[in-house]
């Protein structure tokens, strides 16, 4: 057991270690950061407006005198919470569809795949924009919008893996011994497509961080008073000439987090060596 973990870890290469480290640090920052940096992200300190990094405020302050470090840490919570929930929603919708469509085939498969075609006909964040325009801009709308936008990703990859799996002999054996469809899907196919799901979910987390940052940059995610990374970049953009750090700090946080999930996803894919179908990288 330990040796297989060791071999797999080596197969993941540096991408796996670096990606895992980045994701772990970001998660710890989101969970425990506010306990260590005891500054209120909303507190406006008028003695330190736009103070540069390194002073009493480690990453400086914005034009209202708010601590950028505290806001970036709080932003990690917002970003990771929304991305985690969106990915969970996409998995819950997409994975069962992919399993059933791949196993049953026939008209269920045809309908499911045309539906995913329809969702994928909206490039990039456009479907999310349409849904948010309808539901109103809020963090829960973003979760619904991203969940729907990314569900086809799981439906497609899980379907592809299920198609491969169902042709194998142990499935024929399970069918011959009279297992019901639900039983075969749950006990035999699901555990064997779990690797694909794990890789895809990791890459989807990166996509969700990217999309959430884009939507909050456009002012369409969490409420204005909530410090989200994208909104911080946007608010800092007009101060770019004299105090670029106001924009650059959250921008760095966004990029590092996305890179972390991409590296981890690619590393996991190599380590598990199970799926070449998983979609690598983000748009």
């Amino acid at each position, binding site marked *: 057991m330990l040796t297989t973990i060791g071999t797999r870890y080596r197969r993941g290469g540096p991408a796996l270690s670096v990606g895992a480290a980045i994701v772990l640090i970001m998660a710890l920052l989101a969970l425990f950061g506010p306990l260590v940096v005891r500054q209120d992200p909303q507190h406006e300190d008028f003695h330190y407006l736009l103070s540069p990094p390194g002073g009493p405020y480690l990453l400086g302050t914005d034009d209202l005198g708010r601590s950028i470090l505290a806001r970036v840490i709080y932003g990690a919570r917002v970003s990771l919470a929304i991305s985690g929930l969106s990915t969970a929603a996409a998995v819950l919708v997409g994975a069962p569809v992919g399993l059933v469509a791949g196993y049953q085939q026939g008209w269920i498969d045809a309908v499911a795949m045309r539906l995913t*075609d*329809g969702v994928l006909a909206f*490039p990039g964040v456009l479907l999310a924009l349409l849904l948010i325009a309808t539901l109103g801009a809020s963090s829960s709308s973003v979760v619904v919008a991203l969940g729907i936008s990314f569900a086809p990703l799981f439906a497609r990859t899980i379907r592809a893996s299920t198609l491969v799996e169902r042709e194998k002999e142990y499935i024929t054996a399970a069918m011959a011994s009279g297992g019901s469809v639900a039983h075969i899907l749950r006990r035999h196919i699901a555990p064997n497509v779990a690797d694909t799901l794990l890789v895809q979910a990791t890459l989807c987390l990166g996509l969700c961080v990217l999309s959430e940052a884009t939507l909050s940059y456009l002012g369409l995610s969490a409420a204005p008073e909530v410090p989200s990374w994208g909104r911080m970049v946007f608010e800092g*953009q007009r101060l770019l000439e004299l105090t670029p750090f106001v924009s650059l700090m959250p921008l760095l946080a966004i*990029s590092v987090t996305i890179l972390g999930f991409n590296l981890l996803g690619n590393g996991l894919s190599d380590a598990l060596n199970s799926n070449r179908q998983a979609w690598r990288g983000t748009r």
Partner: protein
Amino acid sequence: MARFVMYRSLQTVPVLFFVSIAVFASLHLVPGDPVNALFPPNASVTADAKIALRKQLGLDRPLPAQYLMWLERVLEGDFGTSITSQRPVGWLVQAAWPRTGELAVTSLGVGALVAVPVGVLLATRQGTVWDVLGSATALLGISFPTFALGILLMLVFAIRLHWVPSLDSIVLPALTQGVGIAAILIRTLRADLIHQLHAEYIRTAHAKGLAERVVLVRHVLRNALVGTVTVSGWIFGYQLGGAVVVERVFAWPGIGLLTVNAIYNRDYPVVLATILVFAVTYVFVNLVVDVAYGVLDPRVRYA
């Protein structure tokens, strides 16, 4: 060939149907009376005026009938009137579309100009420091959000170096999208080139004494570019999705900026029209790409 084009075209019908249903439904998912969504939020509208408008738009009829009426108007190019500007929505879209097209073509040019030489360089030096560095940069490029790249380029080239005279120029928005496109293109091109370099016909070409450069340009690159055609539909989608962001960063008056502003102003007729135009364009471009791929590589037609 005609059968292939027919078959592939027919496949777009259910997709277009879904797209139109999704856009139509979203108007009816707006909380409250859809008629309210057609007036400015604080406008004083009499109940009679609302009833008249409801009748005029057919909102008193069953949903399937409403859908067909809406579809008929949309196919005639009538998207209604913008709430904020009181202009026909079709007119607004027509005015913004060329600006988005101009940006798309320029950035695609930038992307290709960067990607082809870099892709060839990485593939021919596979496994060297150049390859590792270049591939890592391309991964960074696709991990980087479009707006972040735009802001960095603005900071470096406009604010610090003063290389770009005015922020209205196409240089920075095109560069922002171009770099994103190059990152995607480099990755696929490198993989395709490496695949081609190991093909048998390349050994033949070398064996008959062709110069390295001739082999690269006339054989390897030509065949690798056929594979790149398949990702071009995806790249186009990246551009459409990215247009919303890039146009917002640089205040470029295209269809993306029109969409974002319409969402802020709750200008539903404009939001629905722009997103519908985006999606239909994307579906058609993918159709054209697939047909082009079928022309370039006959094996695809029988797949």
